[in-house]
């Protein structure tokens, strides 16, 4: 069968890197095709070239056998290509229906036909089982629901031939993801082709027909998904075999490192637990269970309404991030771009941001700053390896390493990780897991909040399960399994 989209010998050069090196790529009509690779392997660049956001240096792109030249995203849109990005392209102050029909409002006698628009939106929302009303303003909805709206917005276009999805499930719950997969299958039946980018390898097997793996700007292989095991894919992505998905667990246990007593705040209520030095303590539950709210409150980033937090014998009431940092508590926040990094500053400047007192004598010792940063860059294998690079130029996994480096530089005794591996590639994931365990074994208190249950089982010694803002289970040892966690999450859900 003639491919719907044919990419031939495409090259793209950026200052210092050949982002795409003579890449060929075919997309058949009605297939779901996964693009895999570590951050910086070239998948995003290829997508941006297909959508016209970047211009190619050499090579050709054809759709339906005709060569096309896109000068911008508008051209690719005309050609029937739709994209769902990780970062949303929604107008938060408008309603759900207005967003879905943005730029293409149904008109009647020269005016917007609100009734038709809202009805069409309601129909779409219902078909996709999205829990929102067409007239809801986006700011009143959660992140997951907004993502659904983003998807609906693209799906609503009538000439859609190719849909590109970049990490569409990264902020969805399992149930929402399953709904999404169902819809993708429906699209496929209608002849729409999907290019699917995800770091969740288990999803790929569920939903994709073929898999193309990239590494260092080159295409490594294209194969049917059912012929590949997750281990095969990882091997191709990394160019070497990764023995385990998770490092050995921490074996150290020590005195209580952080005691939370009857802590309450917006999003959670009356939470008590003790985290010990040397152990990795998980906090899991569905999106919206109150995990992020809890860790952010412990760090002082949100107001608490009651309860206390102790570090050993010392009361460290969460007043502000400033006092947390002074007590050597660190937080790797959920969203690294909005909360973790000052993207315009260099990596070195980000790394010392929480430890400026260390390099202040009283003027900033910039040489010492570089030394500290280079040291962390080496430990964490950050790429590209120049700490003077602006943080914005790094891939997601490497950015997360820079945030981690910031807290390593602070010598934190308590480390709170909130969704530490969201949207980062397998290689970087493993390194971050290894660091988490290593930090615990060095006698620190480590808390990992994550909605990826597998990750919790893989690295934690013990986990708390949250539901509707309360802790509903405390699992360790033999009970720390996917099944037990799922049971705890759903228990009482009648």
């Amino acid at each position, binding site marked *: 069968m003639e491919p719907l989209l044919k990419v031939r010998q495409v090259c793209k050069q950026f200052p210092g890197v050949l982002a795409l090196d003579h890449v060929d790529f075919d997309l058949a009509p009605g297939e779901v095709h996964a693009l895999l690779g570590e951050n910086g392997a070239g998948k995003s660049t290829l997508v941006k070239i297909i959508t016209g956001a970047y211009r190619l240096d050499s090579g050709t792109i054809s759709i339906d056998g005709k060569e096309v030249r896109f000068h911008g995203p508008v051209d690719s849109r005309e050609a029937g290509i739709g994209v769902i990005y990780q970062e949303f392209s929604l107008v938060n102050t408008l309603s759900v229906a207005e967003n879905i029909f943005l730029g293409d409002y149904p008109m009647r006698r020269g005016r917007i036909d609100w009734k038709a628009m809202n009805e069409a939106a309601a129909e779409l929302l219902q078909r996709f089982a999205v829990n929102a009303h067409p007239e809801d303003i986006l700011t009143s909805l959660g992140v997951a629901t907004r993502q659904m709206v983003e998807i609906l917005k693209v799906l609503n276009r009538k000439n859609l031939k190719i849909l590109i999805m970049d990490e569409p499930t990264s902020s969805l719950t399992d149930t929402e993801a399953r709904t999404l997969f169902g819809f993708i299958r429906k699209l496929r039946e209608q002849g729409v082709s999907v290019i699917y980018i995800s770091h969740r390898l288990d999803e790929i097997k569920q939903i994709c027909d073929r898999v193309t793996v990239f590494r260092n700007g080159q295409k490594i292989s294209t194969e049917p998904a059912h012929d590949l095991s997750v281990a095969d894919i990882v091997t191709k992505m990394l160019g070497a075999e990764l023995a385990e998905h998770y490092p050995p667990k921490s074996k150290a246990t020590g005195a209580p490192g952080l005691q939370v007593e009857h802590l309450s705040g917006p999003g959670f209520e009356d939470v008590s637990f003790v985290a010990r030095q040397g152990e990795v303590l998980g906090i899991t539950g569905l999106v919206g269970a109150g995990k992020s709210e809890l860790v952010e409150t412990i760090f002082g980033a949100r107001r608490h309404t009651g309860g206390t937090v102790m570090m050993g014998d010392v009361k460290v009431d969460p007043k502000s991030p400033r006092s947390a940092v002074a007590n050597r508590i660190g937080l790797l926040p959920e969203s690294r771009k909005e909360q*973790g990094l000052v993207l*315009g*500053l260099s990596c070195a400047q980000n790394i010392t941001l929480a430890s*400026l007192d260390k390099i202040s004598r009283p003027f900033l010792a910039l040489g010492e700053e570089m030394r500290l940063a280079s040291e962390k860059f080496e430990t964490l294998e950050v790429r590209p390896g120049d700490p003077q690079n602006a943080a914005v130029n790094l891939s997601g996994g490497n950015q997360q390493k820079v945030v981690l480096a910031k807290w390593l530089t602070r010598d934190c005794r308590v480390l709170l990780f909130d969704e530490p591996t969201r949207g980062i590639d397998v290689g970087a994931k493993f390194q971050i897991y290894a660091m988490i365990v290593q930090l615990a074994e060095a006698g620190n208190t480590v808390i990992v909040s994550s909605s990826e249950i597998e990750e919790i089982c893989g690295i934690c010694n013990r986990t708390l399960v949250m539901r509707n803002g309360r802790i509903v289970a405390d699992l360790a040892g033999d009970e720390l399994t996917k099944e037990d966690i799922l049971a705890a999450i759903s228990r009482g859900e009648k």
Partner: protein
Amino acid sequence: MSINRVVRENRQPIIAAVSLVGVVVLLTFLSEYFLTTNNMFNIGKQASINLIIGLGMTVVIISAGIDLSVGSLLALTISVSAVLSVVHGMNIVLATSIAVVLTVLAGVLNGVIIQFGKVPAFIATLGMMGVGRGVVLLISRGNPSMSFPKSFLWIADGTILGIPFPIFLSLIMVALTAGMLKYTRFGRAVYAIGGNEEAARLSGINIPAVRVATYGICGFCCALAGIIFAARVGAAPPSAGVGYELNAIAAVIIGGTALNGGKGNVLGTVVGALLMAVISNGLNIIDVDPYWQSIVIGLIIVFAVMMSNLRSAAT
């Protein structure tokens, strides 16, 4: 750091610097008077007021703020010291010191209102612009005839090591501000807050203190500029400094400091302020209608930013 990166990350100040050199070369050909020590000092003196305000503005803009009240704050320093010394016969040094302190406090008040009153910087300082000007008119009763003592005028006309004092003072302020931004915790915090306030907060930066301080520093710069202004004019016109906020913002922007914060440097502002001063001086020398000056400066601002943005968008 590689030269390539320096060029890439400082495109706009480099464009401004190249334009500055170009304009200087052009004017040297057009007028033999232009490139004389005397005229260079003139340009320096002219630029000094805008430059010193621009330094404070640079700090504020890097922190993702803006200060529209600088012209009024400058006038506040002038009028307070004039009223105290001329009308009440106070010692000029004491009078000026009180005026400086009051102006810094007005700047601090800007910061407090923005930080704790949650008023956007644009609005808060717009309010201060009006209030400050009103106070000036009120205390001076709209009287421009108060004149400063002869000895005070040294500030504008005197020299140190052969350099006119306003230029000397500007150089010191440039060095201090640049050093502060690059080599102090405070300076680093200013960049961090402007680049991503939430990330800065979650890194334990004391946001309120830093923010209030940036506006206080801006107020201090206005006070110094006010003293130079008063000494140059020798009087205290209540309309002093009207429109200066736009000149200062222009110098900062031409120099490549990002209006949305997190990025920029003092050297760019120096180039920006000099470029503006050279152009207005040059147009004067070659006998162009002074009304053209404002048009040319306006075009340069737009052109400088356009050049830089067009080139960075072409990936």
